[in-house]
């Protein structure tokens, strides 16, 4: 949920999104691309494009299921095999950035992605947490995982950081606040920024609406843009 929410910003770049959350593929729904058929070309599977300019390419198991409500009850080896195909057999074309949306945990999907991307290059990982202790506790393990697998941590994002009441503007820290920033300090990682808990963002993702186009003045937009810019500068560096 956290990863998926934050990936949905369209940059001025050619971006690919690889959704390896095989049990819970949310990207097709969030980007409102429906259930198009995945075609083959000479170079491999053609990704689904979210926009007519073909700036945002997507591959997800959601496109391959007969019924979008179907449960994918697979054990590790099968998941590993499909992820291998997603990496090698999709004709991504020329991309500036390939974003990989992973499920929670540190299991087959994560190992499969890293193993398959090794021969190319993994520039790094962005870790998303909500501020409360049970979340930061899990992300702490993810940080160790990245260190052990020599994946550079590009930074930590604190999602659902504070809720501003639309009625009286009082800010309530429903999921606490600052946990992500603290975690970044504790582990010597970059803190990329916080994204507030915004019902408009949640609703946009439900409807597959482009939040950035619909609400360019919101503070959530500013927060996400800043995170994107910080990330891009660190990639360019």
């Amino acid at each position, binding site marked *: 949920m956290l990863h998926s929410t934050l990936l949905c910003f369209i940059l001025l770049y050619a971006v690919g999104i690889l959704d390896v959350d095989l049990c819970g593929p949310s990207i097709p729904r969030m980007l409102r691309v429906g259930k198009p058929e995945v075609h083959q070309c000479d170079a491999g599977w053609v990704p689904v494009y979210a926009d007519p300019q073909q700036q945002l390419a997507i591959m997800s198991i959601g496109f391959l299921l007969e019924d979008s409500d179907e*449960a994918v009850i697979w054990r590790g080896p099968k998941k590993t095999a499909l992820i291998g195909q997603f990496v090698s057999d999709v004709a991504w074309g020329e991309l500036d950035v390939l974003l990989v949306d992973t499920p929670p945990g540190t299991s087959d999907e994560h190992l499969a992605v890293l193993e398959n991307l090794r021969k190319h290059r993994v520039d790094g990982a962005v870790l998303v947490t909500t501020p409360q202790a049970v979340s930061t506790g*899990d992300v702490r393990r993810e940080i160790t995982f990245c260190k052990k697998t020599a994946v550079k941590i590009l930074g930590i994002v604190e999602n659902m950081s504070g809720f501003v009441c639309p009625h009286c503007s009082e800010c309530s820290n429903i999921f606490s606040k600052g946990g992500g920033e603290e975690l970044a300090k504790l582990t010597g990682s970059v803190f990329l920024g916080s994204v507030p808990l915004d019902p408009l963002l949640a609703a946009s993702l439900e409807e597959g609406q482009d939040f950035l186009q619909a609400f360019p003045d919101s503070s959530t937009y500013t927060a996400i843009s800043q995170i994107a810019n910080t990330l891009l500068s660190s990639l360019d560096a």
Partner: protein
Amino acid sequence: MTMYFIFIQVCSKSLQERQRQHMARGLPKQKPIAGVKEVIVVASGKGGVGKSTTAVNLALGLMANDQSKSVGLLDADVYGPSVPKLMNLKGNPELTDKNLMRPLVNFGIPCMSMGFLVEEVAPIVWRGLMVMSAIEKLVRQVDWGNLDYLVIDMPPGTGDVQLSITQNIPIAGAVIVSTPQDIALLDARRGAEMFRKVNVPVLGLVQNMSVFQCPKCNHQTHIFGLDGAKELAQTLGVEMLGDIPLHLNIRETSDKGQPVVVSSPDSPEAEAYRRVAAAVVRRLAEHLR
């Protein structure tokens, strides 16, 4: 020619028989956990919807509603074990004379979690097979004693852990937790379908983070949407077990390891969890009939 034909027929029959035996051997047999009367799994499909918080407060709710019942809690989320934090438990389990792990107890609930066996920052970077073996240990090599209910906090998803647990242990019922968002509900639906496929009765849905009331002006905001879970429950033909609001108190008490059902028993949030527990008991009884 005739002899060859018969020979091939006999061969293919015994081949089929061997295949059948092999397949039958491949499927694990369900074995109840010694001393445990009913196993309830708490699942979601999606991560981050409050499954562990619900599992913890459900276990405490079951005990709060009926003090004579003994309830245990198994944290099957090996990758992100939250139970130690939520139940304020730490430390390595001791071993009994029979080489079983002694569960750690708080608020009267014996608990077992991967979190007790590894360091707080250590990731569990395991593939499916190792996870299955770990789950087996967390289930069977624990001295649970006699329990009326064992609540199992499942990890998100519909993969190895879910399959291992549902194939190896007879489950009395599954509680599916979701927020009202479509994206969470989509995964909850997949979760429900998985349980149907493996013949585990779905006791019902819990709609978590349903509404937030501003502490200053009391204005209510449905941050994650309105009533999505209720609609899904209707579509799937399952019951709504309850509705839990988004309240700072739940998160604050969770972070401190003082679950809301025991730390603020008179609060509406605690009451909501106790209602879910009561609904679970009723559904279990209905299902037995």
